[in-house]
């Protein structure tokens, strides 16, 4: 059974890697978007899902990655060589935020992350080395879609694999313990702050990598696009929609979200009711299945199991 599941994941991976051979550019663009969404959702899930620390400030890390890449590229560095530096800077900044903020719990932590993200956005649009509110453009002639596609897809595959690995590792179990009951975890000798910081840094670095690749593909960044609060909100939305704390949940959420976002907007007939559909769907999901699509799946599975009269336990998704 495990082999079947693994082969399914592998088949998906091979499909997206081989896609440029037989799919047209438009579809590849969609897949690029999907991969980007999967990375953001899965990375957020490392801290928000596994450890239960809901941050609404992830646009900061995306922005750090994107700005590092563009600023260095403008000074003649090859864009792809800037990726590690962006990731390191983001991880470092995650410590700066995390050290004080992880003393806070629940909503207080969430609000603190909003505050940091907004302060960074305002600063980025006011100081001059970031180009201020006008943003920055990548130097001309640095665009190769196939390369961008592969790097984003490969990163997405690696991140999902990493998430699956962490979920099963001792690290993942410690995060789960923190999520379950932080005091109990502490009592059992889990240094919660250290684990939270590690998860935060890891996810920040991954999001920064995605941000760098985003900048390379879009070629134009501005505080209003990469440091936007709406972006932070979407990053949280995807794992929640799919099923928080699981491996497949964020992936499903990303699929739904990235499809909805652009496909809905690109149908002129739906143009005037885009927010209705989007908001309404959000309300319905939150109201009836707070565990997201994974929750729906579990219900269906339970339904199927009872319909066939078998007496299997409802398996844990992930």
């Amino acid at each position, binding site marked *: 059974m495990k082999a079947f599941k693994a082969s399914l994941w592998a088949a*998906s991976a091979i499909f997206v890697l081989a896609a440029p051979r037989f*799919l047209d550019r438009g579809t590849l663009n969609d897949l690029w978007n999907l991969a980007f969404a999967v990375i953001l959702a899965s990375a957020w899930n490392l801290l928000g899902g596994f450890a239960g620390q809901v941050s609404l400030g992830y646009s900061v890390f995306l922005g750090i990655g994107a700005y590092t890449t563009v600023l260095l590229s403008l000074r003649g560095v090859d864009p792809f060589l800037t990726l590690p530096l962006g990731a390191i800077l983001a991880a470092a900044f995650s410590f700066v935020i995390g050290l004080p903020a992880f003393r806070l719990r629940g909503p207080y932590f969430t609000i603190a992350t909003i505050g940091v993200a907004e302060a960074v956005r305002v600063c980025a649009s006011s100081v001059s080395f970031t180009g201020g*509110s*006008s943003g920055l453009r990548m130097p001309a002639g640095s*665009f190769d879609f196939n390369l961008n596609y592969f790097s984003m897809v490969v990163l997405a595959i690696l991140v999902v694999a990493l998430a699956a690995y962490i979920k099963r590792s001792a690290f993942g179990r410690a995060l789960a313990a923190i999520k379950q009951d932080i005091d109990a975890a502490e009592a059992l000798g889990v240094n919660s702050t250290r684990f939270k910081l590690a998860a935060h840094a890891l996810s920040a670095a991954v999001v920064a990598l995605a941000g760098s690749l985003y900048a390379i593909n879009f070629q134009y960044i501005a505080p209003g696009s990469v440091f936007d609060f709406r972006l932070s909100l979407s990053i949280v939305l995807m794992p929640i929609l799919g099923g928080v704390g699981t491996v497949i949940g964020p992936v499903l959420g990303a699929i739904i979200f990235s499809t909805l976002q652009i496909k809905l907007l690109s149908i002129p007939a739906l143009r005037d009711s885009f927010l209705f559909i989007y908001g309404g769907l959000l309300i319905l999901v939150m109201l009836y299945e707070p565990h997201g699509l994974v929750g729906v*799946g579990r219900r269906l599975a339970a339904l199927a199991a009872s319909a066939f009269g078998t007496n299997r336990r409802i398996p844990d998704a992930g």
Partner: protein
Amino acid sequence: MHASHSWRVTLQAVFLFVFAGISARAQDSEIRIGAVLPITGKESKIGGAYKAATELAVKEVNDAGGLLVRGKKMKVDLRLLDDTSDAAKSAQLVEQLIVQQKVHAVIGGYGSQLVQAQSVVPERYGIPFISGGAGASSIYGRSKWVFGTLSPVENLAETQMDFLFDLVKQRKLKAPLKISLLRENTEHGKDFQKGVREFVNAHPKQFSIVLDESFELYAPDFRPLLMRVEAAKGDLFMCDAHLEDYIAMHRTYTQMGLYHQMVTYGARGADEAGRKALGAATDYIFASGWWSDLLPYPQVKAFNAKWKAATGNNPQWYHACAYETVRALFAAIQNAGSLQPDAIRNALARLVLKDSILPGGVLRFSKTGEATLPFVVTQNKPAGKLDLVWPKAAKTGEPVAPIPR
């Protein structure tokens, strides 16, 4: 086998299929024109106006049977999308229109940041792109596929300074004059600041800047900023702002009893929404813009009548610019006589639109793809009147300076 895997298999299969593409079939019986505008979100006010004017221009052409291409009339199929004022989505939607809906040309959005994001896309696919809503010079000259009908915002500021300088020469205003310069923290604001600064540097005897500040969009309280203005004791008040900020700021300005010899909010001032919100406090504010319905050309009068008949309102500069952008693109398509991207692009580059409603009466694009037309300056007069005061050749009334106390 776990039961849960069945749905997982299904879902994974579904996602592979969803992305196997809903793509438009290429049939060239129609001209497909894409447009991406901020119809919702923070640019919705002017984005909505651009939508209305774009749709009117397309409707007119279709009502007349379409555009003449290769000897036969072809209807225009407008695919107008909303980017929700989000730069990333804006670029993605332009890409979608080009790649999946296979449009022949793209009409760009409104707002420098959004158009900046869009303008990197056309180069990749070699599709002509024309925007009527971004006057930031940094957008143009990077790609041969990108055109714009809004003249640079620096020139807008420069026109205002020319106008003020002329008032000094007429001895209506007494040099030296101290300027309090405020600007919104956007590219538009930055270009405005640059234009004013450059002029001031070139005319140090007449002008100096005593305050140079920027503010965030949609600030709830302008009092701290205006207290700085009060303390700076400038003679002229020059501010570049969005409509909402202009209204909120000028209310506080009036309540605080501030006075300057001349007051401008950049392109704002003549807007009906502004006059409705501020009443008599807008009197004598001068504004420069890309267009005014007071321009004394016959084609402008015809456009005013057409717009009034279609919507019941008087046209504003953004309606005219959006309308003219579509017209420029259509003229280029007819000149090209072909739907080949290269042909349309070259026709745009060579375009000389002789009966343009924009100032100067002739629309053409510079080497960078940007139109550089003269600006108009209007001044609000009491009882809701509005006069065109610049360029002198087209003026409908004398400028009043300084503002009577």
